[in-house]
């Protein structure tokens, strides 16, 4: 007896097939953007806006995916983007491949739970194996290693041709923001890196600035363009004419008082400004408006005032130059004072013109950890894509600097894992054996896709890769051990030692992407029933 439901219901093999198909469709979209020879996607939305991207997460986010299983994948790449920042494409591809193979197994009447158990085991084993054998400490590789990590991440992107330039810029940038955390460990808050985009020139003219930059001009043209030894005040209230709160009314009996009120309004703001200037401030950042009449005082004092600064920016500025963001000048006694201690300092604050925009640069701040990257490029789409690429690379460099360990890229890790898991599977006598060997096989999708994207002979290269890796794992020979670093050289269609060639990725990125991919595959695999409820029929209207 079946329960009757309103709506459609799919179950068993049917739903599994549909899920796999949907997931495969998503993976196919991003597949061709993987690796140094991957290409970009152009995404056009309903309005006709264009996004050009190579980043898996960005591509998938822009798609309006409807199928629930496919949505899981989109979420997956988003998660990877948040957690690691890079490897968003590969995680989707691996997950899709895992599902496909799992589905085949189910067709051979192996119960999904067995497969899931097998996958879990395989995942644990592989993570252990990466940690124990495949990861390399960055100390043993020197500074070049970090540079190489950045380059590897950038290589697949639009700015791949200028990866040298960008990699060194990014590494310098991330290293400069490093601070000693509470637990005696270096932390690299990437939030203190500000990326500004400015149309014009070419990507190569992008520059790295030690300091902070704002994309606004000074408020009045009469102000100086540059101030050395700046004393910075950060205000979070407006410098308009003083206005009573809404609803408050003043009832005036004598006409003379009316005039006094008006004057007082001007005076209040003037006094405030004078207090700020008196304390020695010569650069003022305000989050709100500054009235035109107030500008004159700043101009006369030879100070730079900048209005309508973003709140986030002003907090950053305040933190780094040692200033205090004041929401009011009121002190505990109810008097308005401005203490000198609320001022921050910087070596120089200046306004410069780039392209068609004005920028305010703050250089040499007291607790300077802030860095700015100014990106240049031919047009808007390009700048957006460069920004995404740079963001990925920054994340990767940060991961490596924090975890201090890298793995070899170019499909080396995946192949090594695959070989290892294959032999591991043979030591098990249960049904999980099959699942694990399928897991092993699925991992090979990464080197395969890499080779296909580079228009190389995937079978041939894969065979060679496998040969080297199995040699390294089955032999105790010192020289053959080195073979575990063998990966693909896509430009020449050969295999090589990628540790020496400098193709490196952060270990944590690989581990996380394996975890996420497996988890996602498992959660889709567990589904054996899809019930889609029909929307409730609208109540019939009273027809009389």
């Amino acid at each position, binding site marked *: 007896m079946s329960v009757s439901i309103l709506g459609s219901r799919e179950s068993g093999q049917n739903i599994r097939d549909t899920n796999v198909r949907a997931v495969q469709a998503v993976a196919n979209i991003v597949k061709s953007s993987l690796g140094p020879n991957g290409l970009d996607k152009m995404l056009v939305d309903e309005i006709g806006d264009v996004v050009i991207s190579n980043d898996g997460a960005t591509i998938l986010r822009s798609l309006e995916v409807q199928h629930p299983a496919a949505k899981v994948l989109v979420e997956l790449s988003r998660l990877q983007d948040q957690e690691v920042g890079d490897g968003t494409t590969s995680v989707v591809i691996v997950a899709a491949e895992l599902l496909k193979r799992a589905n085949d197994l189910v067709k051979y009447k192996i119960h999904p739970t067995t497969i899931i158990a097998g996958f879990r085991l395989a995942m644990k084993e592989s993570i252990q194996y990466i940690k124990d054998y495949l990861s390399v400490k960055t100390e043993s590789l020197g500074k070049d290693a970090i540079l190489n990590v950045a380059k590897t991440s950038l290589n697949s992107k639009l700015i791949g041709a200028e990866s040298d330039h960008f990699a060194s810029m990014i590494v310098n940038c991330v290293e400069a923001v490093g601070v000693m955390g509470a637990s005696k460990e270096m932390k690299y808050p990437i939030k203190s890196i500000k990326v500004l985009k400015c149309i014009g*020139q070419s990507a190569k003219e992008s520059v790295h600035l030690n300091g902070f930059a704002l994309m606004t001009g000074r408020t009045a043209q009469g102000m100086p363009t540059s101030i050395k030894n700046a004393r910075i005040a950060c205000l979070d209230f407006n410098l308009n*004419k003083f206005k009573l709160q809404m609803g408050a009314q003043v009832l005036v009996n004598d006409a003379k008082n009316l005039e006094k009120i008006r004057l007082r309004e001007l005076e209040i703001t003037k006094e405030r400004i004078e207090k700020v200037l008196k304390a020695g401030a010569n650069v003022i950042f305000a989050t709100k408006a500054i009235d035109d009449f107030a500008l004159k005082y700043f101009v006369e004092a030879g100070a730079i005032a900048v209005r309508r600064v973003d709140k986030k920016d002003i907090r950053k500025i305040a933190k780094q130059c040692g200033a205090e963001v004041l929401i009011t000048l009121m002190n505990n006694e109810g008097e308005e004072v401005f203490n000198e201690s609320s001022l921050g300092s910087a070596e120089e604050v200046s306004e410069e013109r780039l392209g068609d925009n004005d920028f305010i640069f703050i250089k040499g701040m007291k607790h300077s950890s802030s860095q700015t990257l100014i990106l240049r490029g031919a047009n808007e789409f390009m700048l957006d894509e460069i920004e995404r690429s740079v963001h990925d690379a920054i994340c990767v460099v940060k991961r490596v600097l924090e975890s201090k360990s890298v793995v070899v890229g170019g499909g080396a890790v995946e192949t090594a894992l695959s070989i290892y898991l294959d032999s591991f599977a043979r030591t098990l006598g249960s049904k999980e054996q099959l699942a694990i060997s399928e897991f092993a096989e699925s991992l090979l999708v990464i080197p395969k896709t890499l080779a296909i994207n580079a228009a190389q002979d995937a079978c041939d290269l894969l065979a060679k890769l496998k040969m080297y890796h199995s040699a390294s794992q089955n032999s105790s020979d010192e020289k053959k051990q080195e073979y575990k670093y063998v990966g693909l050289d896509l430009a020449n269609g050969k295999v090589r030692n990628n540790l020496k060639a400098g193709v490196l990725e952060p270990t944590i990125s690989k581990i996380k992407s394996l975890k996420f991919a497996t988890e996602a595959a498992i959660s889709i695999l567990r589904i054996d029933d899809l019930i889609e409820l029909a929307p409730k029929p609208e109540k019939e209207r009273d027809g009389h």
Partner: protein
Amino acid sequence: MLLDPMGGIVMTNDGNAILREIDVKHPAAKSMIELSRTQDDEVGDGTTSVIILAGELMTVSEPFFTMKIHPIIIVSSYFKAMDHALKVAEKIAREISVENHEEIADVIHSCIGTKFSSRWGSLIVDLAVQAVKAVFINKNGKKEVDIKRYAKVEKIPGGNLEDSRVLNGVMFNKDVTHPKMRRFIQNPRIMLLDCPLEYKKAESMTNVEMTKEEDFAEILRQEEEEVCKLCQAIMKFNPDIVITEKGVSDIAQHFLLKQNISVIRRIRKTDNNRIARVSGATIVNRPEELQESDIGTKCKRFEIKLVGDEYYTFMEECEEPKACSILLRGGTKDVLNEIERNLQDAMSVARNIILDPKLVPGGGAVEMHVATELTKIANTIEGIEQWPFLAAATAFEVIPRTLAQNCGCNVIRIVTELRSKHAEDSKDAPYWGIDGNEGKLADMRVIKIWEPLVVKKQTFKTAIESAAMLLRIDNVVSGISKKEKKQGPAGNIEDAEI
């Protein structure tokens, strides 16, 4: 830029201006339009060349797709070509002195030689050079030329184009508020305000409760007194002219007229900034806080003239003005608009030269030279990348080719001739280009066609980078509903609804 030697008669031949008007749907085409905007923002010239060059780079890459060369390889060799092209361009560039008026004029002349205004010869050129020199500031090594803010173009229909000139000061379309005020003042003392000279209401909500009739009169008197106080504060400094951004009430006019002060009201903030710059005055908000230093005296002549059927204020004969107005006269509004565009181009060119005084030969010479040099370099490149590199080299020839086409001569013959000239191993080789007017080859040094290096460099960079970006696309995912779908350039459009 040098694309229409006959002169764009109908509308305009500024690439950016044309493309801005076109409404394109295709995403790739859209990004091309962005290009010309970038070029306009960055250097203000060469907007047409950049589109042509980017288009050609895409065209020459097409055969490689059928040859199954991977786009990545094409892209990376394009970037290599860009590096070399920039080096080559830099090598043949020559530096000029910023002080040399004639040389700068030559360059601008060759840049706007194609435009409508070329009929009036050096007029526009002179205007541009003068204007840019006026706003040029060299402050401890930092050069600043802010055309957008400080060089204002005022168009007045009527009169002859020859009447156009750069003022040694500024002008604006305003008259004094009261007909009896003085319209001509020598050595005026100028006061700039940005507050109204009338009774202002307070910001806070204030209500006045009146019980007696006298109170009402009292309030009115109060208001009057207030204005009177403002005027007295102003009169203390004995200015000849008061200019404010806001309104001036009748009472205030009355007081000021009695003191023989001319008042101009409701001028724009930007105009006020310019006046501040030419006269040395500071814009003041509260008349009570005026200081002697706020009064501007650097402007020697104030005059209001009737031009056409409107009154214009002229402030001229300033000591070292750091801002200027350019007065354009011409037959109709359309003509003036086109001339203004040309003038803007010319001013950007002048700015570029002053900021970076390096020149390359024009008339397609530099492109041809880059093409020849790149072809030579191509032979030293190993592997598959050589082909796209060579293609990029030939793509540069599109500029002289288009030039030749547009002047109506035998394209194949003249381009071949040019190529052979450049292939010669002589010192003059890089300077041969096409004379757009005659349709013949000429030595660019002789006919004095030069272009700023910055413009050329920016053109190469923008064109190659954008072509590279488009080449990397292998898939277009479109959210546009199925009916409107079109075939993409490099791949197929996939369905977004999965």
